[in-house]
């Protein structure tokens, strides 16, 4: 994908420009510090009433440990890596399912439309937790899926249904002249989707697509219900072992944020970078 012609300015320079375009950096910094101070104060107030004894120093070992001079991932980071793995595989599959469903719904096939419609209604109108259990306990054993595969399938089917609606919206939002131009050039339907329709549609739907990716990462926490050792399960185990309930869950939430916030930031810049001029 090629960007548009623009002056050669490094991405860092542009980033800097954007970040430091505040009215007054001092004012914002002070406001931000005040906000954090208030939050900390409220938290210490509530925990002191609970009589909670903070032991943050016990948390780092669950992130990283030094063993024989080597840095080793702690339980939380191991869980995070597993969360990455299951989210990644599910995302690829969800995208394939979503795209397939969207294309079938847009096609003329009557049976196809009925099937995809049924899939969407069932998946979107039942809780993901129920689906994960059903796939793991009922569907999985029947078709011989392991624990990981069952969880991936449940997540992918769930996210796929939402992705398909977003993709379909993006596709139908394009002017029909694009189809006509492609067809009158003799492009096949496949080529038209690949070269003309999808590149434009996906740029349009980047924002909702990003929120679905983030939703998928967050929803993957539910696979801990079928004992897959993702970030959420590790957190639960550590919390149960150590009674560091607050510290562990705060740390876990922070880890999710550290993953998802940069993701949406990256997409935000991608959106600007690949924007189609109109």
């Amino acid at each position: 994908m090629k960007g548009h012609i623009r002056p050669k300015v490094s991405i860092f320079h542009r980033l800097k420009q954007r970040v430091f375009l505040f009215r007054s950096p001092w004012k914002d910094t002070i406001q931000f510090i005040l906000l954090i101070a208030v939050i900390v104060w409220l938290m210490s107030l509530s925990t002191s009433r609970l009589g909670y004894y903070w032991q943050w120093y016990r948390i780092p070992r669950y992130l990283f440990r030094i063993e024989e001079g080597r840095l080793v991932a702690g339980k939380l980071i191991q869980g995070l890596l597993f969360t990455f793995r299951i989210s990644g595989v599910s995302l690829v599959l969800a995208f394939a399912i979503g795209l397939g469903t969207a294309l079938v719904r847009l096609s003329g096939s009557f049976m196809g439309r009925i099937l995809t419609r049924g899939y969407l209604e069932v998946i979107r109108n039942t809780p993901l937790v129920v689906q994960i259990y059903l796939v793991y306990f009922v569907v999985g054993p029947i078709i011989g899926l392991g624990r990981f595969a069952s969880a991936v399938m449940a997540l992918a089917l769930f996210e796929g249904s939402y992705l398909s609606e977003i993709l379909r919206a993006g596709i139908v939002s394009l002017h029909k002249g694009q189809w006509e131009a492609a067809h009158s050039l003799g492009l096949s339907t496949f080529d038209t989707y690949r070269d003309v329709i999808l590149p434009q549609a996906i740029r349009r739907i980047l924002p909702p697509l990003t929120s679905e990716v983030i939703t998928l990462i967050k929803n993957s926490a539910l696979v801990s219900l079928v004992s897959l050792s993702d970030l959420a399960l590790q957190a639960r185990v550590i919390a149960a072992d150590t009674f560091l309930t607050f510290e562990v869950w705060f740390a876990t939430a922070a880890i999710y944020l550290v993953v998802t916030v940069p993701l949406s930031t990256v997409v935000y810049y991608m959106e600007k970078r690949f924007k189609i001029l109109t």
Partner: protein
Amino acid sequence: MNEKELGDYIITIDNVSKTFPGGIQAVKDFTAKIRRQQVVVIMGPSGSGKSTLLRCLNGLEEADSGTIIVDGIPLDDNREHRLEIRKEVGMVFQSFNLFPHLTALENVNLAQIRVRKKRKSEATKMSMELLRTVGIADKADNYPAQLSGGQQQRVAIARALAMMPKVMLFDEPTSALDPEMINEVLDVMKDLAREGMTMVVVTHEMGFAREVSDWVIFMDDGQIVETGTVEHFFENPQEDRTKLFLSQIL
């Protein structure tokens, strides 16, 4: 009709009708033949079915009845036939319909690479030549939004020509343009006509019709009201409706 005579006609339209859902009959029992290297101009008031007829010729609209034969290939339900005809027939739209995410060059390249299976370098060579012909080789790397309407339409013409079509269809190619850009597009079309391209043009540009068209079809209400040579048409129209239309437009 003997074989040789049939060969003279590149497009045969026989008794074609098209009704849109909702009951509006856009084209009624339309019959016409178009010879190779002819420039045919279709005129008529808006809503007279000109565009619909044109779009039927490359299968963008499906005729309800009647037959259309392009270069010996019948336009029917056969997918191969439809695809073959689309390769042979180029189309230029009122609203250009360039692909906004591709540069001018990439727009012209796309079908050559995908449909004609050319290598990129080969396609680029031809595309640059075509962009030179329509006078915008220097804008090859610009995106459509960075071009004026007239430039966009010229890219669209180059894009259609890149498929080396036997017939070019123009659907009101200058109607969406600012007046000062109309001529740059018409000039390209005139050059094309002089080089012997078969063209079917829906337009209100009388100057263009006078200068290059061999045959004029005046349509109203989905039907042919009057057809004839340019001279006949402008100097000696027979039908009242034609006279009325011409008096309004000239």
